[in-house]
């Protein structure tokens, strides 16, 4: 019963994003476009860009994901399906988990797939690519899970985007620090097991606790 609810939710979310494919691709275009801003503003000096690349890629990925989670619950909130989910018998934890996992697949995976291309733009050495992809694989779901808490808190506001970033950005910093440092250290040719382990730990923490916080935050909007 539980599994079927989880699976149904996952299927619904994936189907919805396939139907609105162009919406789902917005974060990806944003990601690539912002990358192009940096050579234009900092100058096309490839040595300088190579040094900045790990931090830049991580910051841009963070911003793209933060913008993408803003609308995560809003359409469901407006059309009333969120209220039906809250009223239903299924535990909200698994329903939100399914929603978040679907978002990871639809938004996170394309970002990770396209990241080697961006690393190439910035001239990041090829040896650091596996670490970049691994760190993003561990970090991107964490960012989505944390961001979803902010999205759930601000779902009732018409334009919650700026407030969302104010709430969520401080929570994003640990992920950003260890993610960017993993790529940086890998560029210098050292082992990055430490950073990756911490990222994995943060992911476990977010995976276990964030759906709880999201459920609590979603419920409060129907509290009168």
């Amino acid at each position, binding site marked *: 019963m539980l599994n079927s609810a989880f699976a149904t939710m996952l299927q619904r979310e994936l189907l919805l994003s396939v139907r609105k494919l162009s919406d789902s691709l917005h974060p990806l275009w944003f990601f690539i476009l912002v990358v192009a801003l940096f050579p234009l503003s900092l100058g096309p000096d490839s040595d300088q860009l190579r040094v900045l690349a790990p931090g830049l890629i991580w910051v841009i990925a963070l911003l793209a994901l933060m913008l993408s989670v803003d609308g995560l619950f809003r359409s469901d909130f407006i059309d009333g399906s969120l209220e039906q989910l809250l009223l239903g018998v299924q535990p909200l934890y698994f329903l939100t988990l399914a929603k978040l996992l679907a978002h990871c697949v639809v938004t996170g995976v394309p970002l990770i797939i396209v990241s080697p291309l961006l690393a190439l733009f910035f001239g990041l050495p090829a040896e650091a690519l596996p670490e970049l992809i691994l760190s993003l694989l561990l970090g991107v779901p964490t960012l989505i899970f944390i961001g979803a808490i902010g999205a759930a808190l601000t779902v009732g506001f018409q334009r919650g985007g700026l407030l969302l970033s*104010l709430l969520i950005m*401080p*929570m994003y910093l640990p992920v950003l620090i260890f993610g960017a440092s993993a790529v940086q250290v890998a560029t210098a040719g050292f082992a990055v097991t430490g950073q990756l382990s911490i990222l994995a730990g943060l992911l476990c923490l977010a995976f276990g606790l964030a759906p709880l916080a999201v459920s609590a935050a979603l419920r409060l909007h129907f*509290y009168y």
Partner: protein
Amino acid sequence: MWSFFHKLGSPRWFYKISGQLLPVFIVSALGLLIWGSVWGLAYAPEDFRQGNSYRIIFIHVPAAFVALAGYYVMATAGAISLIWKMKLADIVMQAAAPIGAAMTFIALFTGAVWGKPTWGTWWVWDARITSMLVLFFLYIGVIALRQAFESAEQAGKACAVLCLVGTVNIPIIYKSVDWWYSLHQPATIKIIGETSMHDDMWWPLLVMIFAFYLLYGSALLLNTRLGVLQREQKTRWVRDLLG
């Protein structure tokens, strides 16, 4: 013991008791503040390397202490209001946010003023300083979220969730100087083990730390009392009180 906890559920009872406690807090806070600052600023010995400029430590360190502890106060109040749905805890959480933000700002500002003569720069992106800036934004986030809601009950729940999520950052802020060794010195004051500071400087600092805790307590009581009056403005006892 539990009857005390249950009584806290009544804002009216709290208003009465806090009115009696408040003078004690304010008088002892002011007394310790005057004692500590005169001792620290006038009588404590000059630092061998930094001269007199080190004396800002008597504001900087206590403010930073209270800024961090203030987040725990806020988060604990948030947890209590979520779990026991206690109205007073929500008001305490609301009252704690601006005071904590102010304390964090004082710590950052005095740190910048102190950094100029000793490090030669107003600001460095050091682990401790950056994490205190993050703490400042955690407080600002809670204040902003509260103002975004129209209903006080929704705002209280939302802020409580946000406070609890933000608690994850606090151990990182505490430990940042030990984990990332950089310009800011590691913690000198230790509960266990030897404090690496001379007694003549350490005692006035301790007095100032207690003074700041009491100052924080007074500000929190005052702000909470204001919150109680605002939240309960429709009840008879508040109307009787204010005439």
